[in-house]
Structures are given as C-alpha cells and as structure tokens.
C-alpha cells in the first residue's frame, strides 16, 4: 500500500521515508559526537565531544570526520587548533569550526584549510557562551554570545564584517534562549530573558516583544525558526510549544506537551509542523494542535529542510515530510481525482484488463490534469519503482491526448534521472525535487565538483545539454585546478593530459589553472599551461609575474594589442636596469621595437636618436638630427646639428640627402647674412621664397647669385621672377626681363602673370608678342573677346572660335554671340 507509512496530522498526512542505511564506516554512537549536517542533503561532519562521552578531556586532539549523507566517509582531519565548540556548514558547503575564543576556521569539504576570521576582540578575550549558524539574506551568517551576554554577528562568512547587536537591558545571566531572525533584509536576534522577549538589532535598538500567549510562562527555553524564516516555534518551561509567525504578530497554536524537560532539539519540518525531540521520542505538532508521535531505536539528529526534516540516526537516515498534495490526490484511499483514476487505468492496462478503458472514460475531459498530476507526483517519489509507475501512467494518459506538450514529461524524466543519480549511496545527496528546483542545477553541479565527482558532473551537463561554456568547461577547469595540486604527478604528463581534455572545451581559462599551479609552486607547469591560454590579456600579466619577459613580449605582440605590448615593455624596462640589455631584448621583435620608438618619439626624442645610433641606422639617425635641428634656438647649434646629420647621411651613403643638407647649411648662412644686412627675416624660408623676397626688394644681384649657386632651373627662375615682379608691380623691370633674352617660358606666361595681378594694359603688351597659335587664347584671357574672335577668324580656326563663343555665352554678350555665329558661317562657306 502506498499509504502505509502515512500518518494523519489534522487534514494532511505526514510520511517518514527511509533515505539510507547508514554506513558510518563501521560502528558508531552518534550521541558521543558533535554533529553538523548541511541542508540540501549536504555532508555531515562529526567530531568526538568530550562532554558527551563523559570522559575526562585528554590532550589528544580530536578528529573531525566528514561523511556524505549516506554515511560514507569523505575526509578526515586531526584537529590541531584551539577548542572547537561548534561545527556548522555554510551555504557553499564549507565547514565552519567555531572555537571558544570566537575564532572561526573555514575548511572545504575535503577538509583543506581555506581561511580564518574572528568575531571580535571581546569574543576573543571573554570567550563565547553560545553560537548560532544561520542563513542570512546575504549567505551564511554566524552569531555568537560572549560570556558577558553580548551578541556579535556577521551576515556572510565570505565577507566577515562583525557587527555588535544592541544589549538586552539588565541581562545579568545567560538568556534562557535566543535565536536569529531574518526580517526585512536585516538579521536581528530574538533573546528570551526568562518570560521577556527582546528583539535586538545592530543599530543599537531593542524592542520588547509581547506575543499573544494564553498559557502561563516563566521562561522560553528553546526556539526554532523555520527554513524559510517566516515561522517561529518557542518552547516554554511549562512544556508548551508556541507556534506563530516570526514577526511574533500571528499565533497559530499553543500545544502543551506536558513535558517539563527541555527538548533535545526543536525543529521545523518544512513549514507545516514543529518537531520536538527528546532522546528517542519525538512528536510532530501541526498548527491546529494535531500531533503524531514517533519512536526511535537510538539517538537521532534533526536537520531542517525546505520541504521536510531529515532524521539522521545510527542506522537510518530518514526524511519526514508532509505528503505532497498531488501524491495525496493520487494515492489517498478512495480518491476520485483524475490522477488517481489514470494511475488505476495504467495499472489495469498493464494487467491487460478492459477496466483500463473504463477508468479512462471516466476522466476523459480531465485527462490533461491527470497527466500533470502523475508527472508531478512522480517528482515527489524517492523510490524509482514508484517514479516509474507514475510516469508510466502519465505516458499512458498522454496517448489519449492529441495536443499535449511533452516538455513537462521530458523535463521530469530528466530531473528524476539526475536526482536518482545523486541520491546514490556513493554520491549521497538526498535532494528532493522541490529542493533541486530551489537549489538549481548549476549549484548542484558545483556541489558535485566540490566532491570531486567530475565525471558525474560532466555527464549530467551533457545529459541536460547544458552549453559547454557554462557546464563542461567549468567542470574541466576545476578538474584541472585539482590536478595541478597533486604534486606526485609528472609535470610534463600533467600539462599534456590537462591540455588534451581542455583544449576543445570552450571558455576554459588556462591562466586560472596556471595561477593555481603557480600557487602550488609549480612554475614550469604554469608556464606550460599558460601556453594554451587564448586570452593574451590574461596570459601576459601572469607571464610577467613569472619573469618570462620574452615570452610575454612575443605573446603580447602576437595579440596585436598595443597596450599589452606597452605593459610588457615598460615592466621590462623597470626590471632590466641595463638599458643596453633591454634594447637587445626588444630588438628581436620589430613590432615591439617600433612601438617603443613610437613611445620615445613622443616622450623622449633624444632616446630615439640613440636607439638608431646603436643599431647603425644612420639614415634614421640623420633624419632625427634634421628634425631636431628645427627646435634649436641658437643658430650655431642648428648648423652643428645639420653638420652632424651630414656625417650620418654620408655613413648611410645617402648622397642626395647629404648634398641637400649641405645646401641647406649654405642657404642658412646666406640668409643669416642677409638678415644682418637688411634687417628683414629670411631664415626658414625656402630658397625659392628667399629669391622671391629678394626680387621684390629689388636685390636682383643676390637673386642672380643664388640662382647660380643653387643651380635653379631656368624655367622656374623665370616664372619666379615674373611673379615676384608682377606682385610688387615692378612692370618696367618685368618688361626689361621679358626682353633680356629669349624667355624659356612662352609670352603667354607674361600675359597670365599680368592678369593675375589685374593689369590688363601691361598684359596687352605681351599679347601682341605671343605666337599666333596662342593669340586667341591670350586675347580671351585678357577679356578682349571681340578681338579674339577676329583673330580666330583670321587664323581660320573653328575650335578657337568655339572657345570664344562659349565665353561670350557665359558673359551673355548677345551682340558678340551673333558676330561669332556669323564668323562661323563665313568660315564654313569659305571652305
């Protein structure tokens, strides 16, 4: 019977399911140990408790053992630190060992030491009296009460910041009980000073609370907060259990247990019932004063879960939970719910009975609900055979539905497969479907990785088709980090096996693994691993850290990331004190070298020159000198720089450059002389401009001299001189010049230059001297269109005539247009 282990509690049922036969690595008496079990089917830590065994404390340090939820030993550690008073687990499954001086040591599940922190000076000096490990809105928190009854708490063990809570007024002895409440994103302590209740916070405030309470009370001696922080149970010295909301505003019931003894543990099973435990007896109390009694054969330990309560004993690990609604709907005797009918139908079907059809007919309209119920109910079963039966029923029902979406069914099958895997004895994580939904698959994967169950984790990822970047890669990276910690393995082989596995996995950070290896002091391994890192921006800094300068530089250059190259260059420069050595190092890499030069060019031009000198790049060195000569203020320095440049160019066999530089020196010297003589500026003008200025100033002799000295080509000299004369309106000199000898430029150039400076009269003088073929063009230029037309007609050139015509049209000279049209006709007829 499915309902055999159900017990009614009011109008709901509770069931106690067996999870595991405990291993405990042989015989074990739990009551002799300090116990800590993590929620969500987490690991169990045990430590021999001298107080419980009654033995006189010896100097022998105790041993901490960590087991999985099935009692399979995971790790062991001989304690060698202070006096541990309490063990707890954080939400990331780290073991928190609380010492009597308020110091907390954090270990991972394999009992590797991770970090430590204290709970403040007062806790250290005064020692602590009591402690609570609680889950806060930020993670896992710890609260301690010192022997002077002050409470200190931290909200997150990953970021321990100690806060002192307000003091309860006139508290001269230990409070009868206290607990931590999380309300409104703030952790507060509820402290019972006998019958008085105080809520204290870290803002220095305290508030006395007055919960509704019918029965008389002299002290609250035990408190329990539900898993979701919303409900509170308190046990009074009169044996009454008060059940209400955690803000103390609502009361659900008061239940008199008639027990005068303080319960060993008071806990919530999910949110529906409070469980009080005395030795081998426990009672489950519902909000309506209903109750169930359970007896145990030996000592048990209770662990609160989101949807139930785990009961860990010497032989058994059980799970007490409210029977989920769907399960009740299907299996409750005489249930007429569609799910129940479908389940029956499926059973009949497998027996080949026609009754199956009758059942299906009964729920024809609600078949989809029935399927949903069966799927949901399957999720709540621990036993695979029951899961199968329910899923089979769901699948059977699905056959009769045409448009039922299969996702829910497939998802449930997948999730159950994963859950059954992790519930296996060897893994020992007894998660329920509800818990997994809350915990999420990625966190479950993390937990498997923590237990070094890499293979299972990866298989689950593949099975659930989680993208490699989020699933398998991450697991492999953890695996690799774990691998590099195993010092007995050969580095070469390790590097190879890691790269083999990880190279195809997208998104693996080799630099992270490498830095792990470096932490373990395995530099060579780190270097080998870093070689596989695709991200230069992560690879290079680590290489620099390991003094692999050249590799870092070449990797940075390969990446093309200039900034990264500079990072290496500047670090190297700081590290290598000998500049020569530094240059030698970077010279191997042309790109790095050019970038360094770029940097120096902006920051230290002199250094660039030195660099070129060092590598016998005389041409570049000469260029540097030329450029820098311009910023010299003293004339002599400037000449000296240029002279030095000549030497460089000669070494580089750059005849042209050295000749030009020589000419420049010569020119500069002449310009200097001219400045002295004339009180006008010449320096920094080009040769051309110098001659131009001289011409304008009427110094024709000097101009002529320069022309000869610098071998200025005739044609340019003429054009230069014409322009200079025209601009300074020296028309007589211009005319004389035009007649001095046969000009290397045509007469039309004279026309142009005159027109450029708007002297039409002068221009006309030269128009008459131009060759006949240029005449029309020149006449057009001076704007004498009529004459141009006449001239064109005379030379019988129709093309020229057309040019004149187009100009005439542009200037809209109607009369002229007519004339030219007439000319054209005449021209054509004459032909």
């Amino acid at each position, binding site marked *: 019977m499915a309902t055999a282990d159900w017990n009614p509690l009011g109008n709901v049922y509770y069931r106690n399911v067996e999870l595991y036969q405990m291993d405990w690595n042989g015989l074990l008496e739990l009551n002799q140990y300090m116990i800590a079990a993590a929620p969500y089917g987490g690991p169990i830590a045990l430590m021999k408790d001298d107080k419980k065994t009654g033995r006189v404390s010896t100097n022998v340090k105790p041993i901490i053992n960590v087991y999985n939820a099935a009692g399979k030993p995971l790790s062991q550690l001989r304690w060698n630190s202070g006096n541990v008073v309490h063990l707890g687990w954080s939400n990331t499954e780290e073991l928190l060992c609380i010492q009597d001086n308020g110091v907390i040591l954090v270990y991972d599940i394999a009992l590797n030491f991770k970090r430590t922190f204290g709970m403040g000076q007062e806790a250290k000096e005064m020692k602590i009296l009591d402690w609570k490990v609680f889950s806060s809105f930020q993670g896992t928190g710890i609260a301690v009460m010192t022997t002077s009854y002050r409470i200190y708490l931290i909200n997150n063990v990953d970021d321990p910041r100690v806060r002192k809570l307000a003091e309860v007024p006139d508290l001269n002895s230990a409070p009868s009980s206290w607990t931590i409440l999380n309300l409104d994103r703030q952790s507060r302590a509820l402290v019972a000073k006998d019958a008085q209740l105080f809520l204290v916070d870290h803002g220095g405030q305290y508030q006395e609370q007055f919960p509704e309470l019918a029965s008389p009370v002299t002290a609250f001696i035990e408190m329990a907060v539900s898993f979701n922080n919303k409900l509170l149970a308190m046990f009074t010295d009169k044996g009454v259990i008060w059940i209400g909301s955690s803000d103390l505003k609502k009361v659900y019931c008061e239940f008199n247990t008639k027990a005068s003894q303080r319960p060993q543990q008071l806990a919530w099973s999910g949110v529906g019932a409070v469980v009080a435990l005395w030795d081998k007896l426990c009672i489950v109390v519902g909000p309506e004063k209903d109750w169930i009694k359970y007896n145990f054969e030996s000592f048990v330990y209770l662990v609160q879960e989101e949807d139930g309560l785990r009961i860990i004993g010497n032989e058994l690990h059980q799970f007490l939970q409210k029977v989920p609604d769907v399960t009740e709907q299907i299996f409750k005797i005489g249930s007429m719910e569609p799910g129940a009918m479908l389940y029956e139908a499926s059973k009949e079907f497998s027996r080949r009975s026609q009754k199956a059809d009758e059942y299906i007919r009964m729920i024809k309209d609600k078949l989809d609900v029935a399927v949903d119920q069966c799927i949901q109910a399957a999720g709540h079963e621990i036993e695979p055979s029951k899961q199968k039966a329910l899923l089979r029923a769901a699948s059977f029902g699905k056959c009769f539905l045409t448009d039922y979406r299969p996702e829910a069914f497939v998802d449930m099958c997948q999730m159950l497969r994963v859950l059954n895997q992790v519930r296996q004895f060897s893994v020992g994580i007894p998660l329920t479907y509800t818990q997994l939904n809350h915990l999420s698959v990625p966190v479950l994967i993390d937990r498997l990785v923590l237990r070094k169950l890499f293979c299972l984790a990866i298989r689950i990822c593949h099975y659930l088709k989680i993208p490699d970047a989020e699933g398998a890669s991450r697991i492999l990276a953890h695996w690799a980090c774990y691998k590099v910690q195993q010092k007995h393995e050969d580095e070469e082989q390790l590097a190879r096996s890691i790269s083999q596995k990880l190279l195809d996995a997208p*998104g693996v950070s080799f630099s992270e693994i490498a830095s792990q290896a470096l932490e373990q002091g395995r530099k060579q391994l780190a270097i080998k691993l870093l070689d596989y890192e*695709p991200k230069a921006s992560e690879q290079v800094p680590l290489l620099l850290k390991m003094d692999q300068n050249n590799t870092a530089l070449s990797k940075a250059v390969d990446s*093309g990331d200039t900034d990264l190259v*500079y990072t290496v260059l500047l670090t190297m420069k700081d590290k290598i004190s000998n500049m020569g050595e530094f240059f030698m190092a970077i010279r191997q890499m042309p790109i790095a070298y050019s*970038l360094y030069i770029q*940097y120096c060019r902006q920051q230290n031009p002199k250094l660039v020159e030195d660099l070129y000198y060092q590598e016998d790049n005389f041409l570049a060195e000469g*260029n540097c000198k030329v450029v820098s000569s311009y910023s010299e203020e003293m004339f002599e320095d400037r000449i000296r720089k240029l002279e030095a440049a000549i030497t460089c160019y000669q070494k580089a066999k750059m005849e042209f450059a050295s000749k030009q530089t020589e000419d420049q020196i010569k020119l500069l010297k002449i310009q200097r002389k001219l400045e002295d003589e004339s009180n006008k500026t010449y320096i920094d003008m080009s040769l051309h*401009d110098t001659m131009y200025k001289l011409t304008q100033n009427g110094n024709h002799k000097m101009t002529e001299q320069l022309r000869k000295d610098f071998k200025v080509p005739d044609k340019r000299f003429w054009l230069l001189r014409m322009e200079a004369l025209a601009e300074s309106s020296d028309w007589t000199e211009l005319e004389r010049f035009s007649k001095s000898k046969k000009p290397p430029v045509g007469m039309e150039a004279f026309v142009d230059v005159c027109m450029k400076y708007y002297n039409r009269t002068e221009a006309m003088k030269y128009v008459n001297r131009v060759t006949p073929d240029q005449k029309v063009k020149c006449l057009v230029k001076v704007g004498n269109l009529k004459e141009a037309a006449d001239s064109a007609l005379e030379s019988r050139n129709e093309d020229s005539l057309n040019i004149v015509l187009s100009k005439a049209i542009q200037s809209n000279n109607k009369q002229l247009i007519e004339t030219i049209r007439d000319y054209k006709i005449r021209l054509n007829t004459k032909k």
Partner: protein
Amino acid sequence: MAAAGPAHLSSGKINLGVLRDHYRRELIECIDKCTGTKALVWDDALTGPFGLVAEYSLLKDHEVEKMFPLGPKTLQASNVQNIIFLTRPKLKLMELIAQNLLNEDHKGPQRTEFHLIFVPRKSLLCEKKLKEMGVFGTFTSVEEFSLELIPFDNDLLSMEIDTTFRECYLENDFTTMFYVAQSIMTLQALYGIIPYIYGKGDCAKHVVEMMRRMKGELGGREPQITPQIDNLLILDRNVDLLTPLLTQLTYEGLIDETFGLNNTSVKLPAEKFIPKNQKPDEPLEPKKFILNSSDELYADLRDKNFNAVGSIVSKKAKAITLEFDERHQAKTVGEMKQFVTKLPHLQKARESLTTQTSIAELVKEATNSDGFMETLRCQQDFTNGLETDKIHPYIEECIAKKDSITKILRLICIQSYCNDGLKPKILEYYKREIIQAYGFEHMITLMNLEKTGLLKIHGIRTYAIIRKSLKLIVDDVNEQVPNDISYVYSGYAPLSIRLAQYLARPGWRSITEVLNLLPGPKVEEIQQIPVALRKRRNSITSSHSSTGEQRVTLVFFLGGVTYAEIAALRFLAQQDEGHTEYIIASTKIVTGDTLLLDFLPLTPITPP
C-alpha cells in the same frame, strides 16, 4: 552637435541603426556611472563622431549640463557635480588634461568629481603619463567607451582615425588594426558571424589573424545570430595607392576635394546661401551642411559624375515646379486636401534643391578653373601610361608657381605609380625642386613617402599589366548614364573597386596573376557557422553562384577610402546583374590631400 535622426541609417539592407543604438547604450552606461550633474570636456576630434551617435538632447536627459572643448585652460567655473573628460588615448591630450587639473588645484578644494573616459580604449601609457604628472589620483573613475565604427549612412561606416596610413606603413605601429579587428568583432556580435573573409595586403592579413585570435578568446560564446553579412573583404590602402591620389569626379567626391567633408558635414561660404538682394556688410561665418541620404536629392546626386549633376538638378526642378502647379488644377476640396498633405514634403524638396544647386555652383567654380582642367589632363596622361618617364612640364610649372604642396606630391606620386617608379634622375630632380621651392624640411617628407612606396625608384613593370588585365582605363565612358565604375574618375576605374568587383564575379581565381603583382599577401578564410544558423537555400560550395538572392559584402578599407570609391561600390550594387549589396567601412574617409597631409612636417601648413 546636431545629429540627423537615425532613420536614414535603418533603410539599408543591414540596419546600421542597431549599431548606433549599441553605441548610445554604451555611452549612456558610461556617463550614468557618475551620479549628479555633469559637464563634458571633449577632445576636439571626438565631437564630430559623437555628434553622429548621440545628440545633445540625449546627453541632456542624462544630466549633462555643459560641454567644453578640451584646451589648455578649459575648465570654467561651473557648479556641476561631475566633470567628465572624453578623450582619445593620446599622450599629448593627457598633458592638456593634466594642465587643466593642476590649474583647478590652485583654485582650492572643490566638491567636483573628475572622471575620464577613453575612446575607444583605455591605455596604460596614458594612465602612466597621468600618474607621472601627478593627476591620476584626481579621477574618481577611469572608463572606456569603445566607439569604433561610426555610422555615417545606411551603408557607410568610418572609424575616423586619420593617422592609420602613416602609422602602419611608416612607423610600423598597428594599433589601429587592433581597433579594426575589434570593430569587426562588434559588428559580428550584432549582425552575426561573417562566413567568408577575403583580404589583400599585410594589414588585412594582420587583421584577419587578430580576428582569429579574438574568436578564440570568445571561447565558444559566439553570437547565436543568423549571419546577415555574407562576405568580408578587407583591402589595404597600399594595395591601391593610385586611386586616392586622383581627383575624384563624383559630386560628393568633389565636395570633399574642394571643401572637405567631415563627419558627413561640410562648411561652405555663407554668401552663396543668402538671397542676392541682401548682401551683408561683414564677412559671414561659413555655413554648415549635413549631407547624407536623408536628403533624397542628395542621395540621388552624390554618386553621379559631376557632369551629370546639372541635368538631374534641372529635371528635379521641373518636377517640383510641376507638382507645385498642381494646385491650380485642384478643383475639388478633396484634391486640394491631397495637395496640402504633400506640401511639407514638396517644400522640403524645394529647399533641398536650392541648397544643392548652390553647392553645385560652388563646385562648378572650382572645376572651371584652368588649373583644375590641366591637373586632370596631367593625371589622365599618367594613368594612360603617357609621358610618365620624363619630367612633366605641368608639374614643373606648378612647383614654380608654388601651387599647394599636396597637389604637387599627388601628381608626382601618381607619375611614380604609373611608371612603376621614377628614373633616379627624374625623382632626384623633383625632390630637389620641391626642397628648393617648399623648403628643406620636405626632404624628410619625401624620404617618408619613399619609405611607404608612394614614391619609388623604378622597378619591375607591373602597372601596364594591371591596367590592362583589370581594365582600369575605359575610353568610352558614359558620364550621364554610366555602365561601368570608371565613370567616377571619368575614364579610370578604381583598382580597389575592380578587386571587389572581380571578387563578386567571377571570383579572385580569375585574376590570380594580377593579385600576385599587387603588394601584400592574399587572405581567404572561412568561418564555420553552426548549421542551425545558416541561411537556407545556399550551400557552402556555391558562395558566388547566382541563387538570385542578394548577398551582403562588407568592404573594409584599411588606411582610408575616397567618396568616389564608395560611389563605385554603390554603383556595383545597383547593377542589375549584381547580386551583391555593399556595406563600406573604413578607418577614415580620405582624399589624396588628406592622405598626404599626414606626411607633411608639423610646421604650420595651410590646408587646401
């Protein structure tokens, strides 16, 4: 800082508005990191690009109250809570910022917080510089905003980095290439992995290699988007150094050549744009126009050969007049109403027509000059392979008349290219002439040009082969109704675009020999796309087969692209048989002048 609405960005085959939105989000995220009122201090070079991404009102919505250009004494007394410096990672600018902060210190303690945002990337060097100057600690936060490719139009992206060519080919500094690779990764994150990559040139290879690395760094976390861009073609500017040196003859190209287009806007003499009867007494500030495809007429005109602009404008004018005249025929109230609804659009069209006519007139003035025609003739001689092996009299004359140095250098570089290098004697002559006329400092300029290959001593003859096999010179060019890309240079087809054209059809295999003659390695790479993300109806093998479906090719020019080249690509996309749509990206939009300007010494230079 006025920005045109993003509507015109979204009208292309690929919605570049998405990219703009991406940048806006990032910018706002950056700015919102500091709470309270803010003043922005701009690195001047960034204001233009930012204007295209985020308009002032957007910044204002995020509590930006004031904006200053970064100068030696920028900070004015203002009672904002935060001062944010937006700057490129340049050491010179760090000095300016430090100066400002040190000045601020003298004024005594203030409540203002300082922030620094690097565009596009943080730089260790700059941070170090700031530390050296003792101001790094003053900053409350140092962020980076990776504004890489700025959307100019629905098919055009530019990084607006103007020093790329010099850095890559002269100084061996490939920082920009890293930015390029990153920007392509950003594009891939937004528009999917680009399956086919082609490239030509050293830098292209470099970029593709970096992309491969960056892909590795992503470690499988690649965008799960169906690829919207099918091909990526990366071209080094030095694969085709000839094209940008030639004078562009498209409308937009000519505007850029004569007046300079910056971040899609141009400044023009204002006199041209006011009614003739009211002449102002004093000279007016130049008037600024934003030119992009949001203006229908401009979208029509920009890629046309300038000789065809006139007829289009007059056609348009007639059409508008005709439409305006419709109101006389409108008899019923319904007809009238219909006309009125069209009115705003019509008025806008008329306004745009007036503007474009004036701009065209301004350009016409420039092209009518003798110098312009003669320069063109000289260029055409060279590209045709004529007169390339002797000293060209026109160049000589220009030097003597001291035309602008960039013009001279452009012509000589063209001659050098078309002659596969100049005879030593000729080159020396030109060099000597330039030094004598323009000054000794240009000796370095010339050496640098030689180092990059823009000028060279004659070597193996290749130009003639390239010219013939790629049909660079087209004699019977139709400027009005073009049938070949050569219309953008009136008879010369841009080499770079020919490469793109051959890639699309029939494929580069057909021009292997020519590709080998061009400098730099050829890159071809396939990026695997997960089957689920592949487009349907096309197999890997038939990447260029005519499936009838339009493919999108992103052409990325490293070192600059000209508007004429852009026009040529747009022309290719419009051809009937062309199944390729082009998105054009570049480190900068250049002209021959701006390209060469970068090589000139830093002494004052008058821009063209």
